[in-house]
């Protein structure tokens, strides 16, 4: 099932009287549910399930017809919905901590920070280090973009899943 087909499917459900549709094909399971409250089904829950990654919750969106091709693509690529790279409120992507530990912006106390607000970073570029029990974890950017905000202070203890950076994807 390709993205175009999923998009077609969403449109079909949206324009029909069907409230809920589940479909399984070639290892991909798609469930589309229109919100009962929404007048004429202006809201829909879309869930994409692949056998490999388990359930990937896509969330609640306005009428699918207002999603651009690009947004549909993002929703449907399983990797794009990882906890560290979720859609923020303003279309920004956030980088989250994969473990509990101390956040360091630089490789050494007297060294310049890995990145600053405004910097353009490439996919795979090191953004920071999280340390737990002398285990150092270099956090790399999952995508190319511009650093819009750094949400934690150097030396601060961060929790699992805590947002560290906001990045405007480019």
């Amino acid at each position: 099932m390709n993205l175009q087909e999923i998009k077609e499917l969403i449109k079909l459900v949206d324009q029909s009287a069907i409230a809920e549709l589940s479909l399984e094909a070639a290892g991909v399971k798609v469930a589309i549910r229109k919100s009962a409250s929404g007048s004429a089904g202006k809201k829909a829950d879309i869930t994409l399930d692949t056998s490999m990654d388990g359930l990937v919750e896509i969330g609640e969106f306005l009428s699918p017809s207002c999603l651009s091709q690009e947004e549909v693509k993002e929703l449907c690529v399983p990797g794009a919905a990882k906890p560290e790279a979720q859609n923020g409120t303003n279309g920004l992507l956030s980088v989250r901590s994969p473990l509990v530990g101390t956040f360091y912006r630089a490789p050494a106390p007297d060294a310049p920070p890995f990145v600053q607000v405004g910097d353009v970073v490439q996919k795979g570029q090191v953004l920071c280090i999280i340390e737990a029990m002398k285990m150092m974890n270099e956090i790399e950017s999952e995508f190319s973009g511009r650093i819009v905000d750094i949400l934690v202070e150097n030396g601060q203890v961060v929790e699992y899943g805590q947002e560290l950076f906001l990045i405007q994807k480019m």
Partner: protein
Amino acid sequence: MRDKILELLKQGQPEYVSGEAICQRLGVSRTAVWKHIQSLRSMGYEIEAVTNAGYRLIGVPDRLYPAEIGWGLKTSFMGRHVHYCERLDSTNRLARELAARGVPEGTLVVAEEQTGGRGRLGRGWFSPYAKGIWCSLILRPSLSPLDAPPLTMLAAVAVAEALQRAAGLKPGIKWPNDLLAGGRKLCGILTELDAEVEKVNHLIVGIGVNVNIAPGEFPPDLAETATSVLAVTGRRASRVRLLQEMLAALEYWYLRWQKEGFSPVLSRWKEYSVTLGRAVLVTSHRESYEGWAEDVDESGSLILRLPGGQRQKICSGEVSLRPLHDQGLI
């Protein structure tokens, strides 16, 4: 071929092994055998050659050659692939490169000397030629990164056991993974994690053990804080034997950790702990805590009881052990 000849000589010890026997066993010419013997001699092996008797190995150099590490190694995967360098900037740096190329789990990088040995947060690590064990291991546990940090404490337990077996020295472990003797640092461990959100790609466990460094050989800034096996016991230890024991203990605890979780490792860690049940000062980048080191929890975090009675969980930071005569203050 050179290592195979060495193996035959080792098996033959203390007797002579005839050149003829080597030729037949390995299917090579006498000239080839002679060339390899010369090559072994240039590596530091002392080999006696006697007409009509053959070759006899009488001396092994104090080097961490892969053939020496492998001879008598009791592991199935830990240290079974060895990248040996006489000089290297940093074993962790090379290990990272090798890990990215997909070398097998348990691959060992070892150097006689590190010219840019690294500690935590960009600090240096004194790694003089042939006087310590400067090595890194590549591991690929199937774990969530959240569960990976206790590996650093596991590594400390393994090195502590190895020091007891190979050098008769029982070190103390300072949370989370510094090995101390007489309050001075004997071994440092720096672990680097490469992970995605759900899974660990690989871990690099960098271990530096000060073995045969004489007390006066430490640079001035380390003179008061570092020590070595030689300085503590007064005897030189076999680095090969110590490394083999380290690899065996690491494999044992690593497999148990994967099967049974962190709890058995933690019990063993507590037997070596010099942190628990003491007043400590924990300094991190932003704040410092003074308190009583009460326990270590199942995630490996240090539980500190503060003077006010409340408990503080510490997941990273530098622990200083307060002198024993200050213990009554808190």
